[in-house]
């Protein structure tokens, strides 16, 4: 029992006075507190009087003790707080906040609460001081040296790019390891004054003017909740709220600084029609839609519905994707609908659906805080899912989880890992089988789990016999000792969570790789448990949702197969249309070859840029050029739009209402903050009008109404309504209005009943290094950019962080080829060649090159091959043979 201000309270072991007081609703000022960091203990404003102590003690760092008597607002305490605040008030150049901003004003509130007069700020201000990122300005005169930024950078992000040092006798923030700075702005977020300001937008208090609209970030699949700060129809900046959403106040460089594209002058504002001379002319909506409808229906009538195909978009909302596939299936009559999930996680959907019965992330990311072991493979988490990486960092740094990273590249997480397995490119199946071999041999498998919940174990066990450490070492290059250590960690510590992304899926045997990861998780009893799970990290804001909505050639919303007549009947009844097609349609990666050979005649592409994102760019370009009609709907005049016959201007995520489904299966609201520029319209409106021009009247469609229709047809979304989502996201499956949602899958039973072990053998990548092409290329993303760069390369914020494509070469290869850091190089594969700038880095293993695919002037996908996984039809983006030489 502890006695705080006269209340006698029970306390938990290790609980601090501050935590206990807050639980009891007693407010103690805590300026320097940073969630997820050890107590910073710099502000000393939380000092309290503790019986028996001859000085005041900080409530944030003093543990509650038996029989302790605490006064949180005694005269001495208040006097001390006032003294500290007075010292503070006189020490920095403060500015009065504007009326309606929140969060930033905590310090100002304290000044008010403790009646501290603010002296007039000294006039004149010297310029901002050096800071590790150009996107943030540091104003030392406004800095109270509270250390929050330091703690956030070091502990929340595991970076430590800033430090406090004395400069001219005064403490201030200084850059320390600038090269590590990710420009995430975590420091900016936690700064309680205006010492750190956004250098992309207007900065200072002006960034806090006007309205704030909370919405879901439009970049990766983390599903961060963020606030757009708006004034007069323009975005002033972005911030996050401390206790809201998966990100809990954190954002990454893209989320925080990548908002310039919304108001870019490059945005499409009016429909465009290609004339006979090949050039585009502006048109009004009526003309563009009529013409598009006419061309589409002509092709359908002349060549049949399957001469048409559509690409929906992982960037659009669930409601829009739902309507898109409804249009393709119900109005145009074809199942030829797909989207870019084909290129990222189609192997996950196929692999996990076979093994577990559901192809999505099994556990919420928060679960990783309970993991004892974490295996991350083929995911550069800190760059591509930075907010999920926060959780992994916290699990390792604060909860003592052991991290195993298996990746051919040196990535941010290898700095944190207990064990870094570095396999040769494309040999993942071998090492995963190798780990399972050792686990079985040592008897570390979870036999009870295997017996009760799975099938196919014996077959797995029999093929694993061949995966001896010696063999696996010879295939993968991973030393046997490291294989043993990894197997021991996974085999003896429980629970263990598995995280993976494109490094596993984008292979010609991607589906098999996903299946063996599922095998590993089941073998060690790590499915359906808190802190366990098989967790594919989804790359786009709504790639999960686009799949859920049936923007796939084989399934209706909710993964209901097109081949089942009962399902088709249910949909046609609600859609008021005739018979729906029963044949599985074309996958995105099949559309291009069909277009080139001529059987596919027309395409409708909504918000995708296959010219840059598809493998073998030359092939993709000629395929699109062979089409008789190409309709593109986008916010920018992308490389794909340039090849269209008609281009329709659409709205960005900030200009529409609807929902996105994050990687965690969390359905969250997207809120309209702005009007689309010029004549641009939300995709949902365009689709409704397109349907009308094609002769189908969907009536008045609002996003919330569309969600009701989705819920009525999609069991896993059955209980989801926009109204419910106002209180926060809901993870599917959510079958009815009373259901709270399902954060963790497969808890009692697998979605398909029993989990299935798939015995799969290792196979070498389709393309091998040769004399002519001696290096292996792997492609991927970098932190500041996103996919084909259409959004992130607008404006200065992200561009200046990473202005051009860098080809990462190992020092030994660079040496051998006589290539220096920063020199221009040419990469050539059997498909073509591109130029980029060499970056000599230990991140690449000898014999391997990395090139990001964001840059149209260095299009990595001119080099990749359209070699497909036979099941998921995903291309092998991760291994292509190339030659690298100095560019003239």
């Amino acid at each position, binding site marked *: 029992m502890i006695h705080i201000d006269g209340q006698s309270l029970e306390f938990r072991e290790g609980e601090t006075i501050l935590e206990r007081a807050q639980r009891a609703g007693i407010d103690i000022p805590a300026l320097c507190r940073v969630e997820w960091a050890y107590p910073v203990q*710099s502000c000393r404003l939380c000092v309290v009087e503790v019986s028996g102590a001859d000085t*005041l003690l900080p409530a944030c760092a003093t543990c509650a003790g038996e029989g302790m008597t605490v006064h949180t607002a005694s005269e001495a305490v208040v006097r001390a707080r006032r*003294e500290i605040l007075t010292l503070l008030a006189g020490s920095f150049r403060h500015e009065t906040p504007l009326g309606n901003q929140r969060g930033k004003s905590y310090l100002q509130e304290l000044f008010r609460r403790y009646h501290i007069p603010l002296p007039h700020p000294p006039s004149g201000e010297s310029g901002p001081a050096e800071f590790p990122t150009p996107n943030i300005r540091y104003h030392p005169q406004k800095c109270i040296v509270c250390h929050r930024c330091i703690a956030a950078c070091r502990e929340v992000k595991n970076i430590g790019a800033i430090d406090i040092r004395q400069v001219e006798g005064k403490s201030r923030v200084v850059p320390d390891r600038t090269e590590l700075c990710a420009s995430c702005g975590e420091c900016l977020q936690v700064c309680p004054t205006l010492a750190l300001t956004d250098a992309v937008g207007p900065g200072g208090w002006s960034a806090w003017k006007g309205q704030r609209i909370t919405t879901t970030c439009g970049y990766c699949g983390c599903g961060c909740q963020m606030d757009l700060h708006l004034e007069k129809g323009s975005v002033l900046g972005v911030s996050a709220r401390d206790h809201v959403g998966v990100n809990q106040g954190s954002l990454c460089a893209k989320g925080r600084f990548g908002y310039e594209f919304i108001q870019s002058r490059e945005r499409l504002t009016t429909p465009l029609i290609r004339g006979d001379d090949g050039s585009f002319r502006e048109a009004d909506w009526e003309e563009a839609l009529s013409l598009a409808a006419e061309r589409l229906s002509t092709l359908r009538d002349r060549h049949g519905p399957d001469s048409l195909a559509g690409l929906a978009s992982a960037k659009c909302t669930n409601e829009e994707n739902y309507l898109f596939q409804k249009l393709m299936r119900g109005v145009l009559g074809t199942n030829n609908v797909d989207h870019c999930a084909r290129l990222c996680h189609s192997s996950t959907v196929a692999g996990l659906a076979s093994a577990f019965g559901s192809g999505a992330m099994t556990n919420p990311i928060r679960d990783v805080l309970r993991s004892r072991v974490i295996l991350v493979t083929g995911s550069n988490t800190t760059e591509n899912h930075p907010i999920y990486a926060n959780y992994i960092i916290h699990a390792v740094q604060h909860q003592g989880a052991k991290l195993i990273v298996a990746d051919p590249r040196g990535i941010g997480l290898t700095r944190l890992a207990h064990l870094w397995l570095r396999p040769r490119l494309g040999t993942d199946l071998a090492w995963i089988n190798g780990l399972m071999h050792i686990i079985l041999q040592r008897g570390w498998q979870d036999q009870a789990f295997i017996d009760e919940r799975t099938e196919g174990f014996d077959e797995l066990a029999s093929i694993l016999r061949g995966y001896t450490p010696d063999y696996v070492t010879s295939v993968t290059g991973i030393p046997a000792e490291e294989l043993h250590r990894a197997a021991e960690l996974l085999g003896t510590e429980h629970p263990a969570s598995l995280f993976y992304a494109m490094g596993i899926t984008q292979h010609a045997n991607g589906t098999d790789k996903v299946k063996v990861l599922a095998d590993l998780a089941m073998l060690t009893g790590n499915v359906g448990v808190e802190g366990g799970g098989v967790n594919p990290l989804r790359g786009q804001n709504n790639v999960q949702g686009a799949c859920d909505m049936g923007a796939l050639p084989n399934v209706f919303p909710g993964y209901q197969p097109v081949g089942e007549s009962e399902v088709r009947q249910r949909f046609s009844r609600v859609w008021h249309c005739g018979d729906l097609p029963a044949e599985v349609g074309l996958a995105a990666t099949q559309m291009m070859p069909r277009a080139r050979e001529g059987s596919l005649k027309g395409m409708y592409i909504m918000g995708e840029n296959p010219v840059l994102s598809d493998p073998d760019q030359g092939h993709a370009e000629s395929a699109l050029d062979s089409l008789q009609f190409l309709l593109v709907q986008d916010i920018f005049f992308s490389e794909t739009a340039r090849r269209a016959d008609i281009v329709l201007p659409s709205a960005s995520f900030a200009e529409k209402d609807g929902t996105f489904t994050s990687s965690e299966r969390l359905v969250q609201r997207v809120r309209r903050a702005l009007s689309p520029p010029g004549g641009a319209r939300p995709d949902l409106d365009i689709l409704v009008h397109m349907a009308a021009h094609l002769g189908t009247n969907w009536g008045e469609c609002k996003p919330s109404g569309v969600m009701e229709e989705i819920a009525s047809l999609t069991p896993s979304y059955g209980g989801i309504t926009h109204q419910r989502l106002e209180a926060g996201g809901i993870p599917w499956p959510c079958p009815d209005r009373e259901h709270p949602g399902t954060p963790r899958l497969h808890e009692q039973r697998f979605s398909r009943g029993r989990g299935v072990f798939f015995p799969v053998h290792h196979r070498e990548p389709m393309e091998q290094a040769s004399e002519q092409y001696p290096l292996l290329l792997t492609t991927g993303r970098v932190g500041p950019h996103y996919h084909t760069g259409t959004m992130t390369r607008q404006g200065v914020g992200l561009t200046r962080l990473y202005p051009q494509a860098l080809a990462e070469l190992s020092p030994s290869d660079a040496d051998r080829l006589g290539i220096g850091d920063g020199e221009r190089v040419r990469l050539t594969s059997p498909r073509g060649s591109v130029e980029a700038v060499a970056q000599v880095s230990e991140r690449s293993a000898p014999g391997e090159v990395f090139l990001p695919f964001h840059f149209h002037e260095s299009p990595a996908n001119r080099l990749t091959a359209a070699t497909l996984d036979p099941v998921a039809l995903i291309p092998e983006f991760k291994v292509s043979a190339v030659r690298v030489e100095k560019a003239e």
Partner: protein
Amino acid sequence: MEQTLPFSTWGRWSGRPPNAQATPSPSHYGFKAFLGWDGLVVNEESVDVVDLCRAYMDTVQKESCGQCLPCNLGTQEMTEILQRLSRGEGSSEELQRLRDLAEIVRQTSKCGVGLTGTRPILDALDFFPEEFERALKNGVPQHGKYVARVTAPCTEACPSHLDIPGYVDMIRMGRYGRSLEIVREGCPLPGSIGRTCTRPCEFNCRRTKLDAPIAIKDLKRFADDMLHLGDPEPEPPPPARDESRVAVIGAGPAGLACAYYLGRRGHPATLYEAHSHAGGMAATAIPRFRLPRNILFREIERIEQTGAEIRCNTPISRNISLQNWLEDNGFSAAFVGVGATQSSRMRCEGEDAGYECFMTGLEFLNRIAAGETPLQGDRLVVVGGGNVAMDCSRSALRLGFSEVHLLYRRTQQEMPADAEEFRQAGEEGVEFRYLLQPVRILSDQNGRVVGLECLRMELGEPDDSGRRRPEPIQGSEFVIECDAVIPAIGQTCVVDCVLPDEDQVQLTRWNTMLVDAITQQSDNERIFAGGDCTTGPDTLIGALAAGKRAARHIAQFLETGTCRAEPDELLQSYISELTVFDTAERLPAPGASPRAEPLLSPARERRKDFREVEEGFSQPQALYEASRCLRCYRIAVAAI
């Protein structure tokens, strides 16, 4: 001066009544006054208290790390007030402000800098108000000369006075390279010391009063373990200052430290080592399962990179004058660090009979280190209660002895071995047998050991060391049957590289060299010494500290021709006399942060071979452990 001299408030804050007569006098160290974390001591009329306060606050402000607001801002303002005051520009409002600030900083700061840093200012204001009044009018006529020192209870307890709060804080900040740099200021063997130190610091850790001491040793090792995360390369040794060369006799810890710090001062040394490799006791007597050889040798290599040349298998001749040898070989000075390598005798019958399977602990360990298996059998008796006895016992288990009995003539309480070593030995299966004294070694007709006759003891009155003296119980003799006996009851010195008379060096009756406690210089101005050969068997860190001190003064001697303790060293000595760790202090709030424990491989596994037993901290463990540090910095200045 309004107070009677000598004047002292020392001890006021720990609740002891100030008593000038009972406070050690700073004048013994050549100081006129002393002002520090616990009060002030004034000895001479000529001291200007206001100026003393100004000099002190300058130091406090410089030390204020900027990690908490009251100390960062408060000490800054206090310093400014005192500076204005000493220029005669102060006001009485400011005097009041000075007092208020001192109070608030003392009340609310995060660490020792602020919590104790302003106390003596309050004392000065209380007891010397007229001096401050005078300064209000006239300022301070002239600045005096002062010497300052920053310490902490742990730092004070460390023979090498490592800035422990400093490097622990760097670990907390994730700055492992910088942390290691701080460690290397006082210890050139962080990885070795981080594994084997007897850690006097931890026994003087104030956190003990809350829950448990900081795991300082393990944190030091952690910083070294993190070398692979981009440890800064050793700086190239500065160019040699002149032609003068220094010989270091013995490449043990003391000699290595001396050479390392000489190198950093621009005086590369040549080390003469009788063994086949450097490292001294650390290489030959500490088993690999506590200190893997690659760790030690890597650190020795680093010392070589500072310019030290190590000549192994090169004993310097005995029975010739060192002074002559230095001249013959062109050396300007020498450091003797030959250790205490002779095993003490048990005074037990049969000790000198040359029995098979009887050997000293040191020989046993040396031969294992050399790759031999010196003894084999089932049951072994080790005699002694120190770390060497523990190491012998644990090594013997690893050689395959199924039973190891460790005999000690007192009880566990009096055992000098490190508690952690004792615990690990017990876990591995060493059997401890207390209150037994060996009296006779028994052998068979082939001269092979078959048993040890012992006498039971009981504890009597305390002896000089304060431990209760063991006394034999008459007629209690009995025999422990065994296959081998190892005495490990201590070492003595044999300093045979000097000739006392010809070299004008004094040896004590324990055969150690007599040197100045601060400068490590012997009566012969060219000959310095340190480590076990001056102290008798002592700790590794003690030897490193002596080597470092000697390096400073050898350099001083080479550069100036004289050699004497500097003011900061005298201040250090004075502080040692005052003591820093306040054993009587009680901290009010309980702590609830248990100490992090490094991973140990399971006892059953580890006794199978000589692989390292401790795995060290993981990153999160280290971060957590470092964040437990209270940073009990203490600051003092003395007027010269």
